[in-house]
């Protein structure tokens, strides 16, 4: 069965909690997690809804393999309409709370309305209640987590919470669970805070059972674990260096966006790389990296646990930050580092700790700071705006100061919290905002990796690497190598990655498995765990259905083909160094073919035939 078949519906306006049976007809068409929760969402919410109004809903959802022994089977997602983008938002997180929700007996929790006063949801198996959180309001995620553990006198509860940034209206606030794992992008934390919901606390002791064919499942799980173990990326590179294994690689191929994406290579990359995190510091004789760490059930263990040098200016007077905590992943290191020109590893680790402590997306945050630095350089922003901060590219002091302000929602940090598009429009330079559909770019420059340009332009949640990671093919040759500098075959490649990722995000598994796994490795695990027909053909169809469903929601929300584009800089300013020198992104060579392959009109909407074929 794998699904618990229980949905919890929490109406925050009325303060009611109800159990309803999972719609199994939909489960057969949308599998779980991203797909199934999005189906619930589009059925229940008006696409034109104001994301921060009580009429928006927010769904915390697990997949059928969440909480099982399938490697990486601990994921959950948050589905809502995002306040940063105005598009469908679906943010995925690891850690342990996803499996805990499942173990408590729930497939998903639907939050609707808005509580009059701050509350948190406490779930202990089938018992659930809304408890007063007035004293937690104004606290960081870390302090909230600490206080809730104390209050419930239970070391085994799992906590997901929003911090001060979300409360103060930062549009890219995250929901942070287990202290440093996050449903990070598109401002899902902002939606949670807008509902006066401070935290979700879960203790589940029922476990996950009812696997359709346990013998076949364990066989498939063990086969999958072996593939991950034997693969060079998932078996060696990721455990040793984390996603930071990419820092030097991507920089060398000239696809590392630098200083608000003006350049494609960062001279300081090696100083903030995965390799650098292993180096012993002269100052205190320790390495930045303490250990790698796994999320629930994960046999890769790419997570970084780091310590900051106690003598570093950022923490010398703050013992609170002397302990080990979630360290730099590639995206955070890049956004806080390369894109702002800062190469101080301890400063970046500190900024990353703060992003976790108060729950903001380091990608959107770093990119917005980068835009602000360029505005400062051109004189559009002055010290009068920044409150005296000398916001220069490369200034670690400026970066850490603005991180503190943004996390607390104070001073110029409130403006940075609005994101790059709103910032650049406010100061009269919309062209300097490196965003798609108002969401900031991640760490792969589409001039050096052409397919990613199309993936960004067509992503259903704005610029994002996790909706179609053609980097795998274009850079690493997974599952087969394509040339990153040409557009040949990229429309089909992007479509295939987008559809397959939609499936992975609907299972409860982590997308990082796909450095080693294809759907051929995942299919036997789903088929053995879940009742119903889960052939490869069916999975491909499910992925395509999910993608089109999200697209139709966005179309109804007001997005058109005009929004499937990239900032002018990436289309007209060629890379100046590296292998991509002389190249801009050639989106116009890819987009029409992509629409055709998708079965969409030239206006970017699914045709009647496409909708009929997918049952939409």
């Amino acid at each position, binding site marked *: 069965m794998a699904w618990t078949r229980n949905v919890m519906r929490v109406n925050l306006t009325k303060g009611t909690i109800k159990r309803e049976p999972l719609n199994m007809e939909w489960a057969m068409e949308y599998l779980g997690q991203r797909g199934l929760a999005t189906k619930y969402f589009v059925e229940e919410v008006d696409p034109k809804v104001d994301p921060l109004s009580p009429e928006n809903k927010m769904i915390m959802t697990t997949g059928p393999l969440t*909480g*099982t*022994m399938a*490697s990486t089977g601990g994921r959950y997602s948050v589905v809502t309409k995002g306040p940063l983008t105005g598009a469908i938002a679906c943010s995925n997180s690891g850690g*342990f709370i996803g*499996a805990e929700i499942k*173990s408590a007996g729930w497939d998903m929790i639907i939050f609707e309305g808005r509580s009059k006063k701050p509350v948190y949801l406490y779930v202990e198996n089938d018992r659930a209640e809304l408890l007063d959180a007035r004293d937690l309001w104004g606290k960081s995620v870390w302090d909230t987590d600490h206080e809730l553990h104390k209050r419930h006198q239970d070391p*085994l509860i799992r906590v997901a919470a929003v911090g001060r940034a979300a409360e103060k209206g930062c549009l890219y606030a995250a929901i942070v669970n287990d*202290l440093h794992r996050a449903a990070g992008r598109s401002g899902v934390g902002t939606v949670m805070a807008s509902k006066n919901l401070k935290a979700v606390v879960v203790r*589940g*002791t*029922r*476990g*996950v*059972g009812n696997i359709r064919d*346990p013998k076949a499942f*364990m066989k498939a799980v063990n086969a999958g*674990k072996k593939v991950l*173990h034997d693969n060079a990326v998932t078996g060696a590179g990721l*455990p040793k260096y984390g996603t930071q294994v990419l820092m030097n690689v991507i920089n060398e191929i000239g696809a590392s966006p630098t200083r608000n994406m003006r350049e494609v290579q960062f001279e300081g990359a090696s100083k903030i790389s995965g390799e650098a995190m292993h180096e012993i510091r002269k100052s205190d004789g320790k390495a930045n990296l*303490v*250990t*790698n*760490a*796994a*999320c*629930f*059930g*994960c*046999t890769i*263990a790419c*997570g970084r*646990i*780091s*310590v900051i040098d106690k003598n570093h200016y950022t923490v010398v007077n703050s013992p609170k930050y002397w*302990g*080990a*905590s979630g360290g730099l992943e590639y995206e955070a290191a890049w956004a806080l580092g390369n894109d702002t020109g800062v190469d101080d590893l301890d400063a970046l680790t500190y900024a990353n700790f703060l992003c976790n402590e108060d729950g903001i997306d380091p990608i959107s945050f770093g990119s917005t700071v980068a835009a602000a630095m360029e505005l400062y350089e051109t004189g559009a922003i002055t010290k009068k705006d920044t409150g005296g901060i000398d916001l220069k590219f490369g200034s670690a002091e400026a970066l850490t100061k603005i991180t503190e302000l943004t996390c607390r929602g104070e001073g110029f940090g409130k403006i940075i919290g609005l994101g790059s598009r709103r910032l650049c429009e406010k100061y009269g330079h919309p062209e300097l905002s490196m965003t798609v559909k108002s969401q900031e770019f991640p760490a792969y420059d589409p001039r050096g990796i052409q397919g990613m340009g199309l993936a960004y332009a067509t992503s259903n949640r704005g610029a994002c690497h996790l909706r179609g990671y053609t980097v795998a093919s274009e850079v690493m040759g997974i599952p087969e190598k394509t040339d990153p500098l040409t557009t040949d075959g990229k429309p089909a490649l992007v479509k295939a990655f987008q559809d397959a990722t939609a499936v992975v995000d609907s299972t409860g598994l982590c997308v990082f498995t796909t450095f080693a796994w294809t759907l051929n490795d995942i299919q036997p695990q789903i088929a053995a765990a879940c009742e119903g027909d889960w052939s490869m053909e069916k999975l491909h169809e499910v992925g395509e259905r999910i993608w089109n469903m999200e697209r139709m929601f966005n179309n109804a929300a007001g997005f058109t083909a005009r929004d499937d584009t990239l900032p002018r800089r990436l289309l007209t300013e060629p890379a100046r160094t590296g292998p991509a020198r002389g190249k801009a992104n050639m989106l116009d060579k890819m987009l029409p073919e992509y629409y055709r392959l998708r079965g969409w009109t030239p206006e970017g909407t699914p045709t009647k035939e496409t909708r009929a074929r997918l049952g939409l």
Partner: protein
Amino acid sequence: MLRALKIEPEKCTGCLQCEMACSYENEQVFNPSKSRIRIFNFHDEGRFAPYTCTQCAEAWCLHSCPVEAIVINPKTGAKEVIEDVCVGCKVCTIACPFGTVNYNHDSGKVIKCDLCGGNPACAEACPTAAITYVDIDQTGLDRMRAHAQKTLPQSAQAA
């Protein structure tokens, strides 16, 4: 040859595969809260530690049981709980100095590691060999070898 679980905390990533394997072997459900082996996360130190019954030769739990529900499996040396005999009095949970015997309120009995009859599911599931099942008299062999290597001349160490 009797064997024992050998635990090397420095290799543990905190993934809980062992807890799931244990609960699945014993309870037919993936449920860390019903696992006989537990992983502890010392967050601020960035350390993980797997912990379970060491199968004491003179087992406090066995001696304290008033109904003789804990017996030695001669094949594995494990101290096993006979569920039908256990009355759930929990005296063994008090007697065990390490806390590795625990009450299961669903069954009203205690649970502890029984080495899965000689094929421990936790060791099988561990992706990093932080838990292995080795000759009971030689659990220190690898550590001895590593230190012995340090006594070699420089050139041999490099090889």
